[in-house]
């Protein structure tokens, strides 16, 4: 038998079982759809990043640092300008803004630009459509739409920042380099440099990102040369050019693509599991045909072709449908990130991703149909004669030979899955972990399903109570020949487990962040306090109702490490985290040992000590190889500070602003420009009053309510989690489709049952109830299994890998169980509602 004949038989058989195969193709489509959607969007997005790199950066090159440039650096920039490299200066910082209608200030992300030059590339769109230089004057600003809403200020209204009033000239509709900047968490307030100067927010030591954008001209040096020059001018800055687009975006995109691809692969695997189940049932049903062909001289290999072709048709059909679904998903993604990016509509279909999704769909389907396909070899032609006799026990050698093939198939599947995962994630290690993890989950689920089904059956047989006939009948249906309840439970359980794990991990992580500010720790932080404001601000805080702890105000001086034990920093080999000491950082001084700080080595200095001394944080001391007696040298505001290491300390507290990696004594940093940072613990009800009062009297001091910041974090986590949940829901859909297909697979048996029940006087309603009991049990059991395993997995993930706390919460688990039962019922009924209408005589006559 050649392939042509095999395909003819394959096609005819598929057509005769089209109802069942339709469901299976849908399950594959769910997985391929998710995969194509994620990868397609990612690839289109990367393509867009590349093609619009200059726009996304708003320049050809950019430098970013957290200190103001000095005069030498400005001179070097002037020199570059004379060679045709134009520049514009962008400052980004966080501060507070308020309006007449909203006296409570909001945390805003300020961006100050030169409206005559910015942006070099791309278009900053305003509404109403003004030119940027008309909108941004020393007296007027532009707001993002969300800020306009939160402040309740329309265009033409007044907003207050840094104690100064500004007229709102326009709303920012799109900002090309929104994602390329820093300190982007708050609501956007765009202003001119003159306006920023008016606010008085920027002083030496203030927390602000300084960004220079550069535009090359035909006369200027090339991008590589300019990049080299900029690196020399700003050794501490991050210099990037448009060719890299934005490394953090691409890195983030790569990571999330890998993660989401693997999530989609799970949905695909659940779909493939459905194909395997359907193929198994199909081959069982076609056993007679296979035996006839074998008795007519057909070899296993020839017959295998028919079913291999069917598996391929299913994989391909489901895959093509999935590609169509995937294109729909791709269209949904831009909406999720519309706040940050404007995605062109032409980036909505990606042929590469479609091919990839199709290939993964086909491969996974073929891998999972290996076991049922191999079972064809075991069908003996003799069954035509002796169906009613028990199958003879095969000699052990034959059994071993056949199980060898099954083990080889299992190994092949594992390797294949690992291979697909490695291909999708570009990492062999990740592929191996994925395959290993998945197999473990599947084994665990199968085991639990097996135990649960056996227990339920034992309960049914030995229950001391009288179970209502309807429930008993519904439960007994689970053990109907060919019902594949175990496989349905595994498939649906995988979906529930995965979706719920994602939810539980995400929620616990967020809770851990919230809880990481334990009682007594500051929950309100005050940034950019000047020497002059320090004492009155302290007084104001202490006078506030709702104060729950002693306020702390920490000085901060911008300084850069220049040498350790007489060796210049450049000659030291520092790697990893320690490299941050190559740039300007914030250091502090303290006369007394701060709270939550313990001395590990050496001794804290006596108050008023004249010798410059420093205490170094444990980790920094380890990286820089410092111990009591070592000497360090630092540069701050043009002055060299030399200090002896007096102690090594460890701090267990949340810090914001000033780090205390280097704590000097007061005399070491005396006379240097200083900014103060504060932290205070307030009762929840007192935070807003403090914010309002501090803002009224000290408008340039930024008050960060950690609860607000957590909201921002939550929003970001929620957005990512939404995408993941959306995709992992595909695994549930695939599971439900499999349930439907399994129900469709037992259609003839069900019809017969329905008919007999009806003949014996059963009403449609009664039959419907029996079926509902069966579907509900399947859903509830799958839900329980999924949530038990999800709880276990998230506990392991959180405790072992993410170092976070896990707390069992019955509510989400209960909701998951109920929802699964609802889904199972819907899927079951979708596949069997037509059965109820069967007329008994039609069926009985055909018997």
């Amino acid at each position, binding site marked *: *038998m*050649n392939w*042509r*004949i095999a395909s*003819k*038989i394959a096609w*005819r*058989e598929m*057509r*005769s079982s089209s109802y069942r195969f339709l469901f299976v193709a849908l399950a594959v489509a769910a997985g391929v759809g998710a995969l194509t959607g994620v990868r397609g969007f990612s690839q289109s997005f990367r393509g867009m990043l590349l093609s619009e790199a200059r726009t996304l950066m708003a320049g050809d090159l950019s430098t970013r640092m957290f200190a103001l440039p000095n005069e030498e650096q400005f001179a070097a920039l002037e020199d570059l300008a004379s060679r045709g490299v134009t520049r514009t200066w962008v400052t980004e910082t966080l501060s507070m803004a308020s309006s007449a209608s909203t006296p409570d200030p909001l945390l805003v992300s300020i961006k100050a630009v030169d409206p005559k030059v910015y942006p070099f590339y791309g278009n900053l769109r305003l509404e109403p459509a003004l030119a940027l230089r008309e909108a941004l004057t020393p007296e007027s600003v532009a707001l993002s739409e969300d800020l306009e809403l939160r402040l309740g200020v329309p265009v033409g209204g007044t907003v207050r920042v840094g104690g100064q009033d500004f007229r709102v000239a326009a709303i920012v509709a799109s900002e090309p380099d929104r994602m390329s900047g820093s300190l982007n968490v708050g609501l956007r307030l765009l202003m001119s440099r003159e306006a920023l100067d008016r606010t008085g927010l920027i002083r030496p030591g203030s927390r602000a990102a300084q960004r220079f954008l550069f535009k090359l001209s035909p006369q200027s040096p090339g991008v590589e040369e300019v990049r080299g020059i900029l690196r020399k001018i700003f050794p501490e800055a991050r210099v990037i050019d448009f060719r890299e687009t934005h490394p953090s975006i691409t890195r983030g995109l790569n990571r999330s693509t890998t993660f989401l691809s693997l999530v989609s692969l799970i949905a695909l695997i659940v779909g493939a599991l459905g194909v395997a189940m359907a193929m198994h049932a199909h081959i069982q049903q076609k056993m*007679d*045909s296979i035996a*006839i*062909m*074998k*008795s*007519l*001289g*057909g*070899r*296993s*290999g*020839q017959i295998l072709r028919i079913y291999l072709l069917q598996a391929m048709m299913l994989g391909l059909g489901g895959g093509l449908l999935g590609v169509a679904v995937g294109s729909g998903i791709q269209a949904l993604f831009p909406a999720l990130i519309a706040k940050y990016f404007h995605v062109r509509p032409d980036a909505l279909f990606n042929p590469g991703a479609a091919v990839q999704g199709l290939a993964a769909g086909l491969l996974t389907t073929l891998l999972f149909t290996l076991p049922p396909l191999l079972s064809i*070899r075991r069908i*003996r*032609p*003799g069954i*035509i*004669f*002796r169906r009613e*006799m*028990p*199958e*003879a*026990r095969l000699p052990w050698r034959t059994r071993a030979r056949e199980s060898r093939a099954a083990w080889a198939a299992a190994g092949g599947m594992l390797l294949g899955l690992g291979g697909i995962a490695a291909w999708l994630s570009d990492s062999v290690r990740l592929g191996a972990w994925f395959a290993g993890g998945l197999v473990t989950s599947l084994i665990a689920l199968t085991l639990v399903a097996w135990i649960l089904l056996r227990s339920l059956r034992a309960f049914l047989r030995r229950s001391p109570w009288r179970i209502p006939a309807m429930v008993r009948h519904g439960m007994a249906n689970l053990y109907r020949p060919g019902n594949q309840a175990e496989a349905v439970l595994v498939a649906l359980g995988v979906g529930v487990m995965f979706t719920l794990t994602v939810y539980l991990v995400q929620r616990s992580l967020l809770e851990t962040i919230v809880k990481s500010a334990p009682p007594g720790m500051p929950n309100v932080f005050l940034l950019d306090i000047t020497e002059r404001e320090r004492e009155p601000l302290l007084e104001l805080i202490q006078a506030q109702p709702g104060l729950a702890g002693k306020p702390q105000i920490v000085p901060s001086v911008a300084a850069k490490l220049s040498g350790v034990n007489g060796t210049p920093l450049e000659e030291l080999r520092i790697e990893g985290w320690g490299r941050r000491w190559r740039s300007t950082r914030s250091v502090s001084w303290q006369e007394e040992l701060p709270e939550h700080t313990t001395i590990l080595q050496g001794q804290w200095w006596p108050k008023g000590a004249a010798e410059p001394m420093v205490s170094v944080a444990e980790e920094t001391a380890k990286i820089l190889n410092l111990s009591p007696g070592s000497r360090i040298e630092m540069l701050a505001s043009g002055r060299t500070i030399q200090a002896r290491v007096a102690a090594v300390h460890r701090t267990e507290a949340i810090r914001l602003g000033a780090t205390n990696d280097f704590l000097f004594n007061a005399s070491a940093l005396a006379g240097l420009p200083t900014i103060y940072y504060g932290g205070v613990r307030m009762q929840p009800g007192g935070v807003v009053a403090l914010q309002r009062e501090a803002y009224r009297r000290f408008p340039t001091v930024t008050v960060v309510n950690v609860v607000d910041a957590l909201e921002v974090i939550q929003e970001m986590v929620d957005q990512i989690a939404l995408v993941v949940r959306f995709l992992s829901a595909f695994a549930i859909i695939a599971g439900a489709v499999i349930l439907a297909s399994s129900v469709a697979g037992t259609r003839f048996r069900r019809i017969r049952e329905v008919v007999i029940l009806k003949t014996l006087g059963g009403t449609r309603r009664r039959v419907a109830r029996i079926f509902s009991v069966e579907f509900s049990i399947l859903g509830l059991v799958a839900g329980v299994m999924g949530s038990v395993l999800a709880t276990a997995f998230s506990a392991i993930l959180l405790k072992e890998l993410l170092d976070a706390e896990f707390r069992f919460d019955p509510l989400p688990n209960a909701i998951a169980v109920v929802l699964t039962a609802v889904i199972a019922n819907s899927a079951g009924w979708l596949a069997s509602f037509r059965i109820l209408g069967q007329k008994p005589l039609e069926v009985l006559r055909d018997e």
Partner: protein
Amino acid sequence: MQPIIHVRGLTKTIDSGSHKVEILKGIDLDVPAGQFVAIMGQSGSGKSTLLGLLAGLDTPTSGTIILDGRDITGLEEDDLALLRGRTIGFVFQSYQLIPTLTAEENVLLPYELGGGNGADGVKRARELLGSVGLDDRRDHYPVQLSGGEQQRVALARAFMVKPPILMADEPTGNLDSANGRHILELLIELNRREGATLILVTHDRTLAGSASRLVTLSDGLIVSDELREPAVPA
């Protein structure tokens, strides 16, 4: 002359774990080429099992079967299939047609399974369908044919590759007497034309009357083996 079927010490035991059932208890049988043998016996006497073993559809517990000069007892599944495809034609009690193939495609199947793929095959299939009177039904699916018609398709299929041996297991068992008679006439007529060895399993004495040799099985053993003058079917 070497018999086309040579059987020695054939046994078949089915072990279902808890108990063993001895179906055949040691059969010796030689069938010369061209003979028409009827195997008779009560239900459960082991006649269908014997036929299945002769055709290599199942493996014996012990004993030897030499088919057309080849010992088939040690052959692998696929080798047996190849041998069947070339050597044996089959007619089953319940027709055993592939439901998704048309009558003509069903007849062609053994030819195609053996690697055939040409106009010759189609020509022969049509000829055979013509000789069983189903010329106008060749594009019909099994479900569109009556029981007698389905068995006629099965007959045509059995002769498709001109096998030297034809095995028929209760070929009229599912048919009414008129149809059964017609099928038997066709079977004998086709067999005469094609010159094959015919092994017919039946419990119907009238049917067995057409055979030149009558082998009777009881409880897994041959209890009588007689050569006789065949009666012409009425």
